[in-house]
């Protein structure tokens, strides 16, 4: 059999799959270490009931639900990257489609897990299949989530088939027998016949078309869980699209991080996943942040302006009440993320003599501004003079601007690092966004005194555990399957060659 796959590619992409080195086991050990406490505490929760959380009346939903929406959100990555870009025949998507699609699958799986963890009676989950009612939005969510998960698994699997066949055929002799068998079964007897290719491509295209509405429906339906109730703060007509945008946003964010981690773990991937990908996807990121800001402003401004008696206290708690840290924290994180992405675009690559744009200047300014910030924060009596305070604030602002300029240059030269930072900001900000949608309304019930909610150690541990599980699935999966779609990359290269030849 003739192969176009070079030995080089094979070394880089297939050999590591059989290499269970120290690094791998350490990662696994670390992940299990962070998963275990949460799982143990969850078992405790199963025994004792949800009383181990800080949920109460009226805060009936808490961190688990926030995690659920967040995880559903990051599952949007697969739909956007894989399906949309595939339909648009965007070429630079090829190396990352697999990671994106697997993120969708794992995100949905862990999201489902959150729902089960949130249930008072997980042993009665079967009741949803026995007595399900169509009128209940939760049923729509169950339908949508299951369909999305199935479709995503199917899409991922479709794309995997040629690679599995490749793995089957190129498995080293030392490979364990069960793995060979696994690949053999999973490859479905793929031979690479032209008709097979044709049918595969057709199937992929069809699935790509269908997965988009299914994905959007899931995020929308999840928003409807809230907006179909009569609770203040959730009766927003833009909640559906807002959730979708948030989902795309956080999905891309996690994708950036996952891809960058994969690149770090397997250095060879850097040849496939180049900076082009970061630059191009970065633009989508920027557009999404603009849309996100638009929605946030929309939601905030309308409520603030109408000052409706029920809605406004909820919004007020976000603007300057108990949720102000979360709300403004979210906004600052999003602004920072956008700035990190946008600012370097305005800076030239060439060395500059402008001291404002020197990295050193930036770092020094950052240091001093941090010190100034803490001085202001501590409210030392020695600095209580209004003039001194004003001076300090002005100095802090100026130095902060200088720091921003200085750091820009540094960021420009480290595209990937800065993108990852921005993604982390976005991820954290989007988690907070979900928190800010859920919690203010729940804590501001109409006929129950306003309350607070602080996740307990159980909820925090379970949350950490959830993200641990997500990572573990990711790591283990890519020990069995190549982290980039080999055949798609090949296809891309071939297409480029064709383009070059012309």
């Amino acid at each position: 059999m003739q192969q176009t796959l070079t030995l080089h590619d094979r070394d880089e992409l297939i050999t590591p799959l059989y290499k269970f080195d120290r690094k791998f086991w350490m990662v696994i050990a670390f992940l299990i270490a962070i998963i275990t406490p949460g799982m143990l505490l969850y078992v405790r929760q199963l025994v004792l009931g949800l009383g181990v959380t800080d949920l109460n009346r009226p805060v009936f939903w808490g961190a688990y639900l926030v995690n659920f929406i967040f995880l559903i959100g990051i599952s949007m990555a697969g739909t956007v990257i894989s399906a949309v870009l595939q339909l648009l025949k965007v070429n630079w998507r090829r190396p990352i489609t697999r990671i994106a699609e697997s993120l969708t699958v794992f995100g949905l799986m862990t999201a489902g897990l959150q729902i089960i963890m949130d249930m008072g009676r997980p042993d009665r989950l079967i009741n949803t299949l026995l007595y399900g009612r169509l009128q209940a939005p939760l049923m729509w969510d169950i339908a949508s989530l299951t369909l999305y998960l199935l479709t995503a698994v199917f899409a991922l699997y479709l794309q995997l088939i040629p690679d599995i066949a490749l793995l089957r055929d190129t498995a080293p002799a030392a490979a364990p027998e069960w793995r060979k068998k696994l690949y053999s079964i999973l490859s479905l007897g793929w031979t690479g016949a032209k008709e097979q290719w044709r049918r595969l491509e057709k199937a992929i295209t069809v699935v790509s078309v269908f997965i988009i509405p299914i994905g959007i429906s899931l995020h929308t339906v999840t928003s409807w869980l809230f907006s179909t109730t009569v609770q203040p703060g959730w009766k927003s007509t833009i909640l559906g699209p807002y959730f979708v945008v948030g989902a795309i946003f956080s999905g891309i964010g996690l994708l950036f991080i996952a891809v960058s981690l994969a690149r770090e773990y397997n250095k060879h991937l850097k040849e496939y996943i180049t900076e082009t990908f970061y630059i191009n996807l970065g633009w989508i990121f920027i557009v999404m942040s603009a849309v996100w800001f638009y929605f946030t402003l929309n939601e905030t401004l309308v409520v603030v302006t109408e000052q409706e008696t029920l809605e406004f206290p909820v919004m007020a708690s976000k603007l300057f009440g108990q949720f102000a840290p979360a709300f403004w924290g979210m906004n600052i994180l999003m602004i920072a993320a956008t700035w990190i992405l946008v600012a370097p675009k305005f800076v030239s690559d060439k060395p500059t003599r402008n001291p404002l744009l020197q990295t050193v200047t930036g770092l020094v300014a950052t240091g001093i501004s941090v010190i100034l910030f803490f001085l202001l924060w501590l409210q030392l009596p020695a600095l209580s003079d209004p003039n001194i305070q004003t001076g300090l604030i002005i100095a802090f602002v100026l130095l902060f601007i200088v720091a921003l300029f200085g750091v820009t240059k540094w960021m420009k030269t480290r595209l990937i690092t800065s993108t990852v930072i921005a993604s982390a900001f976005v991820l954290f900000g989007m988690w907070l966004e979900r928190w800010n949608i859920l919690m203010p309304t729940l804590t501001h019930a109409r006929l129950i005194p306003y309350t607070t909610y602080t996740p307990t150690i159980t909820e925090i541990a379970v949350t950490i555990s959830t993200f641990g599980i997500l990572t573990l699935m990711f790591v283990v999966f890519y020990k069995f399957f190549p982290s980039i779609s080999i055949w798609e990359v090949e296809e891309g290269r071939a297409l480029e060659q064709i383009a070059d030849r012309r």
Partner: protein
Amino acid sequence: MNFPLEQPLFQFFYWLVNTAGVGSAVVGLLIGAAVTTFALTLRWIASAKDMGQESYPYPPKH
């Protein structure tokens, strides 16, 4: 304005959305259809026979 619930059509809709188990059935149907479609698609792909033309090497040479 009263909701015309006495109309058989609306009665049917009402029955449809509000009966325990009907939702499950609909969801089951949806999922069953999806799974079946996926399985059939996979079989369809796998069942493609080598037509004697260019095979395994990819991409097809143009």
